[in-house]
Every structure is written in C-alpha cells, then in structure tokens.
C-alpha cells in the first residue's frame, strides 16, 4: 500500500517536473510568460492611470474679461489655447474634427457680468462624440476642473450675502434705537428693503451651479451609438486574425504543408492566399458586427469601395503580423502568447477604454503610429464619415512584407 502511494507520488512529481522543465527549456514560453504581465502591469501603472495630465483645449472667449481669462487659465488638467474671435466656433469644431485639439470651449458675452450679478453663466463645451472613452471622460472632467473657480465665486457670494444681511440687521437695529428721528428712518428702511430685495432676487440656480457647462458633441448625437463599430471591428479583427493566422502557419509547418509549398512554388503565392482567406474572415466578422449594430438602431452610409479597402488593409496588416508570429513561434502556445502580448497593449492604448488624450505624451505619440489606432481612425473615416482611407496603410503593409520576406530568407518557413 505504501509502495503504491510512493509510486503515485513519484509519478505526480514526474508530471510536475516535466511541465516545469518544458517551461524553463522553451525559452520563448518563459520570456513571454514573464513579459506579458510586465507589459500589461507596466502600461497600467505608468501610462493608463495618470495622476497628472493636460488636455489641449481650444477656447473662444467672446467675453474677453479678466474673469473669463482667469476661469480658463486656472483650469486643472487643461491647457487652454485661445483662438481668434473671427469664425471662432466654426474653427474650433473643425480643429476638433481634424484631431488638432481634443476639446473646445466657448464663453459667451456677458459671462463675467452674469457672475457679478450673481446669475448663472454658461460655457459651451464641444467634443468629439465618436471618441468613446474621451466623450465619457469629458462629461465629468470639465465640471470637476471648473470646480475651484466655481468655489471661488460661491465664496465671494457668501461674503457678499453676509455683508448685506449684516447691513440689513444693523439698519433694523438703528430703526429700533432711533425710531423718533423720522428723516433718517425713511432712508434706512429703503436701504434695508434694497438689501432684502437683492437677497430675494438671488438666482437659486446660481447657488447650485454658478457656471453651466453646455456640452455639445461636434457630430450628430446618433453617431456616438454608431461609432462603436469603428472600435470593436478593428480590435476584434486584430485579436482573431493574429491568433488564427499565426496558428495556421504553425499548423502548416507541423503538417509539412509548408515543405510542399516551398518545393513547388514561391512562398509569396502562399502568403497571398493567406491574406485573401483572412480578408474573407474579416469581412464575415464585419458583417456580423454591422448587423448587430444595425439591429440596435445604428445607421451607416459608407461606400462599398471604401469598405473593401478598409477590410483589405486590416486583413493584410493583421494576417501578415500573424504570419510573422507564426514564423518565429515554435508552437501554438507561443503563438497565442505572442498574439496576446501584441494585441492586448495595442487594445489598451487604442482609446476605447482609456482616453488617449490623458496618456503621457510619449504614449500618445506612440498611439498615433501604432497600427491598431491607425486602423480605428481609418474605420471611423470609412464607416462613420464615408471618407476614403489614407495611403499610409501601404507603408505599413510594405514594412510587414519586408519583415516576412526577410524571415523567409532566414529560412523561418521550415
């Protein structure tokens, strides 16, 4: 009985040891296993959860008063850029649409006058409602930034109130003490009446919220609902195609199909077939997502040519990237880890979950040149605004082709 337990114990130890040995001996596994949490946790700590960030905000200050200037200069977390008054709002909207600035604010005439009269003032906030994470951030971020300024106004109001109430009270005391002096009595009653009137006329809205921020999306409000597709589609395509194409190359290597390919033709024909195959998969995936969004009530008007271009671009990029992963990985497990290590950080800094505008400058710059963000921007351009796709994608594709070609030359196809 004891021997049987010991034998089972040895077997158990043997199985454990085998897996540990494989983990250590397969260096790529080990490196990726360590690298993945390092990258994700590092990204989260140093990039995605910033304590201190500044967002560029274009300002149209039609009030041009010291108070309005003060209101924007002291905005916490925003870097104001004051624009010329002529066609200011139009320019502001154009700049947001083109991505030059992330946010716009318009201060109307009488902003400071209203505040001085203890009446509510208004700031119109313009933002890109197709930028999902940023739009969500802005809904509370502007108000919280204005809070110190508003606190100052309320404090000032508080002291004014105290002043006027105490003036009214001293007037009343005077009446009680000197009610025989008729001339002065009339004068004091008028004063008290005026002070009480000003308290009576006080705008209660002003007490709650001295500055009302009117947030206006630069695009049709319906577009926010529809814009999700421009994020979900490229992200899903990246994950799915990276994993499918990399594991498909490994399968072809393992089953000896690649040997047959190489003995009969140039690997480029094989690559071309892979890209076409994954383009079809990307298209099928797109149709499923589109159908769901349309059932939800979203509507789109994109050109078929633009869509084909977009799908081909995404398929070329993702499948070539997957092929590269497949060529440098020894097995499916490593390919999946590799795909995760690429797709996961790209997704985190794509602007879907965390607004790009709040990330550190270096990450923001990186975000602009990273392929997933570029794919998202292109998807927005094609699917939401019915615009063509910029030719930059060709440089991406050419770059990847060069890498694949180099790997083939290095005989990574075996």
């Amino acid at each position, binding site marked *: 009985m004891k021997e049987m337990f010991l034998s089972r114990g040895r077997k158990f130890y043997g199985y454990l040891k085998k897996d540990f040995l494989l983990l250590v001996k397969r260096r790529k596994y080990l490196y990726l296993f360590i690298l993945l949490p390092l990258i994700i946790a590092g990204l989260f700590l140093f990039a995605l959860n910033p304590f201190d960030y500044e967002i560029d905000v274009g300002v149209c200050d039609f009030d041009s008063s010291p108070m309005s200037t003060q209101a924007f200069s002291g905005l916490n977390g925003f870097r104001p850029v004051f624009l010329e008054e002529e066609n200011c709002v139009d320019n502001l909207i154009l700049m947001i649409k083109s991505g030059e600035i992330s946010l716009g604010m318009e201060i109307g005439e009488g902003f400071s006058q209203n505040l001085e009269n203890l009446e509510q003032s208004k700031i119109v906030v313009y933002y890109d409602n197709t930028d999902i994470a940023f739009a969500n951030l802005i809904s509370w971020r502007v108000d919280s930034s204005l809070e110190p300024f508003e606190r100052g106004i309320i404090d000032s109001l508080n002291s004014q109130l105290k002043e006027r109430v105490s003036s009214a009270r001293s007037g009343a005391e005077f009446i009680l003490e000197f009610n025989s002096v008729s001339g002065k009595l009339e004068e004091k009653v008028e004063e008290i009446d005026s002070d009480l009137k000003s308290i009576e006329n006080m705008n209660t809205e002003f007490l709650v919220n001295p500055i009302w921020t009117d947030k206006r999306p630069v695009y049709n409000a319906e577009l926010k609902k529809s814009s999700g597709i421009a994020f979900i589609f490229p992200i899903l395509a990246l994950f799915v195609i990276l994993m499918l194409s990399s594991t498909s190359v490994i399968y072809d290597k393992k*089953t*000896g*199909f690649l*040997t*047959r*390919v*190489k*003995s*009969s033709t140039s690997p480029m024909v094989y690559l071309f077939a892979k890209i076409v195959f994954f383009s079809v998969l990307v298209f099928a995936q797109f149709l499923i997502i589109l159908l769901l969004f349309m059932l939800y009530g979203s509507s789109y008007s994109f050109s078929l040519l633009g869509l084909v271009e977009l799908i081909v671009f995404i398929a070329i990029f993702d499948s070539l990237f997957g092929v590269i992963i497949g060529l440098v990985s020894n097995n499916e497990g490593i390919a999946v880890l590799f795909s995760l290590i690429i797709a996961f950080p790209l997704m985190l800094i794509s602007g879907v979950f965390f607004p790009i505008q709040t990330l550190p400058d270096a990450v923001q710059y990186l975000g602009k040149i990273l392929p997933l963000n570029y794919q998202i921007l292109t998807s927005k351009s094609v699917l939401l605004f019915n615009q063509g796709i910029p030719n930059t994608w060709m440089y991406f594709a050419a770059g990847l082709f060069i890498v694949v070609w180099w790997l083939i030359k290095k005989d990574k196809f*075996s």
Partner: protein
Amino acid sequence: MGIKEWLFSKLKKPLVSENVRFSYSQQEILKDISLNIKEKEIVAIIGKSGSGKSTFLKLIAGIIPKQKYGKIRIFGMPNFLGKNKVGFVPQDLSFIPDLSLMDNVRIAGLNLGVKEKDAIKRASELMKLLKLDEDMNKKPNQMSGGQKVRFNVILSLLHDPQIIILDEPFVGLDFLNRRLLWHFIGSMKRKKKSIVLTSHLLTEAQEHADRLIILKDGRVFFNGNLEKLKKKLKMNFIFEVKFSKLTKDSLDKIKKFCVYKDIKILDYYEKYFMFGLQKEKNKNILLKLFDKLKLNYKETGFREPNLDETFLKA
C-alpha cells in the same frame, strides 16, 4: 509531350549541380558538391547523419531558399525556375491530418499546379502502383504507417515530375513495404524519370540504385557503383571472428597489427571482430597473429562485403 519539350529534355541534362556550397550558422554543411544526374537513373546518396544529404536534396528542391555558392540546374534552368519538373518527397509525413485523402490529393495537386480532376486521376493511378487501395474519404490517421508513407509519396508526384527526389523514403517501413517502394521507384525509372534518394538501408540501395554517392563531411567522397567503391577502398573481403577470451593487451596488439598491415577493423564489440581485407591472404596473416597471441577463436564469416560494410570502411 510536345516536340519543343521533348527536344528540350533531350538537350538538357535533368539535374546538374556545380560546386554547390552551403553553410548554416557559420557551419559549412556542403563543400563543392558537383553532380550530374541522368535520365532513367536511380542515384542513392548515402552518408552519416549530418553529412549534408538532406540539405543537398532540399537545395535541389528549392526548399532551402538558396545556396551561397554554386549552381543547381534542372533541365538547364536554375532550380527555383524548374520546381515544376521536380517531385520532392519529404522525409516527414506531409499531409493534412484533418482532411480526407481525397481532399489532401486535391490540395496537394493544386499546390503543384494540377487541376483537381487530373490530380485525383493521377492519384488513383499511383495508388494502384503502390497498392494503396484505400477509401478516399478516409482520413490519413486511419491508415497504417506503411500506407501513410506511400500516400506521402503519391502526394508529391501528382504533377508527373521528371525528377523524383525522395528524402529517406524507407524510414519506418517493413520489408514488404520497402520492396514495394523499390518496385515503384523502378517503375518510375522505366518511365524515364531521374530518381535521387537518400537512404540508410545501404544494402538495398546497392541492390536497386544505378549509382551511389557517398557524402562525407559535406563533400562527395565517392560517386559510382559498388565495385568501384570496393576498389577505391581496397576492401574486397569481410572476415568475422569471435574470441572465447580477449585481454586488453591482446586487443591492443591486434589493433596495432591491423594499422601496420593496413587491415581495417570495421566493427568490434566485446569478443566479436569484423575485419575488412583487401586480399584473401590477409585472412591467414590475421590467423597467424591470433595463434601467436594464443587466442581461442571461432570464424563466423568470410565473404564479400555488402554496402553497409563498405560504408563502414568509408
């Protein structure tokens, strides 16, 4: 075959390699390999593991992207342009396990540039020749090891290539399957194909191949038939003995004597010895030595060497 193609195939040699050199990770695998394979010829490339046999075949088939130096020509064309004239049978079984035999034939045929219908027709012909009477809807994993190897060969020949390259085709095959494959290779030769193969089964290669090429340390050590090899190696006889007792001192003396008399000890294990002799009289010289050393022995063989034994000498 059109007149142009016929003339072309007559004028140009099927396979020529000139001064082919290849290195991998700064290690020179092949050094100046020059060969010429004729039509209707079976050439067996033999050599130790790591001698560069498979690398050479892969270079011919264009699987390894490019040799650093030298030329490989297929019917006068650079090898990468003549891929359609070559049928490469890889050592590892290369088919898609999740697809049926029929689908594998279709895909392999298309990969070789053959229409699906033609590939299936050609596969059925080859299956008859290789006695592979299987249900085409089966999956490869439902076949036996020998059947898989034969199917692997079929998938490489769907385009009816002029040159057939087989990388260790007999590995894991039993005697009957090996005989069948040799017969098949012979039938291909009769169809005017040029066949190049590597094998560790030297005796069988000697029996069926027209020419043997021995690669040693990345060079062609020998190129010809067995008789020529025997002459080159000066080894015409094999003498085998088993001692009843053998001391270390006696062993050392035998070894020294053999070096002195240019007798090759091809193999020894405990009390068993195999000597390679150039002349018959060398046997008597050895027997005299054993008597002098007062060794009790039993003669277990005296005969002409086969290729395996000649290869040991090489």
